[in-house]
């Protein structure tokens, strides 16, 4: 980690403005395959098993408590009127938000031709899919009888009724499922060339059979690449609209209702920013661990981490603006209910959650203005953990603080989560990291065909590449 250059001539300034190389050190195209694809499917190190047993235990705790919830009823949770939504919806919004970084990195940054995305796109897309799996779990168990959840689908039935298409909750069902399916498709299409590489590398018969089927017989013909690139770009464009719409629709669950503190026009952009914010924090955390343990420092460089930290810093400032605007709306609207709710956020029963949110999301990330902190592991991990905690508590504040004192003072209640609530939250983290750990061992964590494309000397325009 070199500190910044102190040269001040015009030429050196231009040199600084040029985007740095996406890899460090000497790396050939074949060498990239050796580095990324060789560990796939091999026996993991001991540390992996330790981590896996921890995450799997957490998952099993979650599964046991979900079974207990379904067998007994959701009365085992702390939710009760007026706080009818609590941990379940907080966790849902939290996990959907985590997923947004993946699509942003893989789709929006592709359209912006940000070449640094290629190294981290595969991993963050996988995180998107796992996060959305965790997210969909919560509304599913919150309905109480998950085996009847298919009633949400508009299918012709004997009861001759249709779902209410004017309800934001149904919009949510469509938005999240579309998001999941399109992310999965995008991820899989990106994987196909890598699976073909794996197919042609492996000598194990079983693995070869599996990779052969999954790669669909990909052979890298130029005509195929021609259609492939076009389709990939189009799906990226569509996913861009999708990533903005999904968290907007999630925010409609709140904004379209009449609860003070929820009924605000700022909610969609505020939620989308928060989602990208939390997602990037999670990606940074995972990337630090991955590049360290899987020795990918030359592919996921300090530059990558620094750029991601800059995105986090930008989002943090936007979040600060959104929080200020909530206060401004409460004051400027002269609506006593909104005013009361906002004062509840910062001085009410859950004042500590409100201030924890502001501290973690707005104050601590300001450290990233300093370049040494943007480039140090401990600094970025501190910020990423703070953001993750802060974003979870932001949803806690929005949901619980707004609901616990509703229009009828006689029904005001203090919400207290039960051990089941905590256990299922733990279980969702366990599930997420279990899936991440499995992914890191069975599929290439870096999109090799995309990386090959941007390696120095890989395109004909760069005359005199390294393969001379």
């Amino acid at each position, binding site marked *: 980690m070199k500190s910044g250059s102190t040269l001040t001539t015009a030429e050196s300034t231009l040199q600084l403005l040029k985007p740095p190389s996406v890899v460090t050190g000497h790396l050939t195209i074949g060498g990239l395959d050796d580095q990324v694809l060789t560990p796939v499917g091999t026996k993991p190190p001991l540390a992996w098993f330790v981590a896996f047993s921890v995450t799997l235990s957490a998952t099993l705790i979650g599964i046991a408590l979900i079974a207990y919830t379904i067998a007994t009823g959701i009365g085992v949770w702390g939710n009760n009127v007026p706080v009818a939504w609590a941990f379940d919806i907080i966790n849902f919004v939290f996990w959907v938000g985590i997923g947004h970084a993946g699509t942003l990195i893989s789709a929006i940054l592709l359209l912006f031709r940000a070449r640094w995305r290629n190294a981290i796109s595969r991993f963050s897309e996988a995180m998107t899919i796992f996060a959305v799996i965790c997210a969909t779990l919560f509304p599913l168990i919150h309905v109480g009888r998950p085996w009847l959840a298919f009633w949400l689908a508009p299918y012709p039935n004997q009861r001759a009724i249709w779902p209410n298409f004017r309800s934001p909750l149904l919009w949510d069902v469509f938005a999240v499922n579309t998001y999941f399916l399109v992310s999965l498709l995008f991820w899989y299409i990106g994987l196909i060339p890598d699976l073909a590489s794996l197919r042609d590398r492996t000598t194990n018969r079983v693995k070869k059979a599996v990779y052969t089927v999954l790669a669909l017989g990909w052979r890298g013909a130029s005509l195929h690449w021609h259609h492939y*690139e076009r389709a990939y770009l189009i799906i990226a464009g569509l996913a861009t609209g999708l990533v903005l719409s999904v968290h907007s629709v999630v925010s409609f669950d709140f904004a379209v209702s009449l609860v003070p503190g929820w009924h605000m026009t700022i909610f969609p952009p505020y939620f989308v920013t928060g989602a990208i914010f939390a997602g990037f924090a999670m990606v940074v955390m995972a990337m630090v661990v991955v590049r360290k343990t899987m020795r990918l420092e030359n592919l996921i460089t300090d530059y990558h981490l620094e750029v991601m930290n800059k995105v986090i810093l930008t989002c943090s400032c936007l979040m600060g603006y959104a929080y200020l605007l909530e206060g401004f709306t409460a004051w400027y609207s002269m609506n006593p209910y909104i005013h009361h709710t906002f004062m509840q956020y910062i001085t009410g029963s859950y004042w500590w959650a409100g201030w924890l949110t502001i501290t973690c999301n707005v104050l601590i990330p300001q450290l990233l203005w300093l370049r040494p902190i943007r480039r140090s592991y401990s600094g970025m991990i501190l910020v990423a953990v703070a953001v993750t905690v802060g974003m979870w508590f932001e949803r806690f504040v929005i949901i619980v603080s707004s609901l616990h004192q509703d229009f009828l003072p006689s029904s005001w209640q203090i919400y207290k989560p039960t051990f089941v609530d905590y256990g299922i939250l733990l279980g969702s983290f366990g599930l997420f990291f279990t899936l991440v750990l499995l992914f890191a061992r069975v599929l290439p964590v870096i999109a090799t065909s995309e990386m090959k494309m941007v390696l120095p000397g890989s395109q004909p325009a760069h005359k005199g590449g390294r393969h001379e």
Partner: protein
Amino acid sequence: MSDRKIFSVVGIFDSAQHLMNAIPDIRKRVNAPLEAYTPYPVEGLDKLLGHRKSPVGGMVLVMGIIGALSALGFELWTSGRDYPQVTAGKPLFSWEAFVPIMFEVTVLFAAFTAGLGMLLLLNRLPMFRHPMLRSSSLPLVTRDRFALAVEARGAEIDVEKITRLLQEFGAKSVEVVEEPAPAGVASPKFFLRTLTAIGIVCILAGFITYWTMKLFPIVKPMVHMLDQPRLNPQSPSRYFSDGSGMRMPVSGTVARGSVPYTIRNQELAGDLVNPLYRTETVLRQGRQAYMNNCSVCHGVLGDGKTSLTKAYGAKPANLVSQSIAGLPDGKLYHVIVAGKNAMASYSAELGEDERWATVHYLRVLQRAANARDEDIPK
């Protein structure tokens, strides 16, 4: 070299630049289709090989529009027409509220058209029997080499000349790729094996599901609202001192609409008077009761001719015949309550008012079956 047909002659190049330099020269000297194989998309290669613009964009546009219109149409039809419910005071055709789902469905259609259209339609994947997949060149291509294939496509090609040309223009090695041997997937043995495997999987899945349901009956599938705390008829209850869940009426009282019917004989019932007036409401109620309970045997016209009659060999009475039309209201009422011949009592199915309304409706049927000229409205 075997006598199998030659599919293509493949030259392996070390870099994208070498490959692209060689293509124009080889094209000039060889009159056969060319195809390149690369580990990643190479800029400008598609133009050099003369690929036309990819039609993915047009496909996506069409399917996206279809997605948008079908989603909007479906929402308008279900929420505005087939199941019109006013929610949140919105009008039935509140298209604004349908936009989010319309957008999601559009993206879903468009993205899957792009993805699956590209894979299945344009690239014709999955394809596991392409000759290249068996060549020794492909593992080099999916790693870091670039291949140029001069394809035969059924025609004869001069292997030696092409080999020489490829080497002359920079190919490091050349491989002759043959057409694969026929058969394999379509053989009867393959089908038999596949069917057996599917059968075994189905049987196993069936048993596993059965035993899981039986051994771990935590989630009873599809019981819906049957399974709730309640007292069924005749079931015991510890709440009452006599241990029975069913209660007798308070002594000396009669529930509304449940006056006991004491007449034993149809002849004696002739004196009963229909307590209902012949209003339209009553006739509608009578028709409803008749349709639900009587028409299945006596027919919707009351003539006793239904498919059920044929199936069971029973002979339900022709209710519009002169003999039955001549009976007084009370005697018809008695049959509904007490039953007659093969007909059972309908006192449990029909309340007192419904029985009398049914009698009124029978008169309508009888009048209709024996209509006179004067009945035609002027």
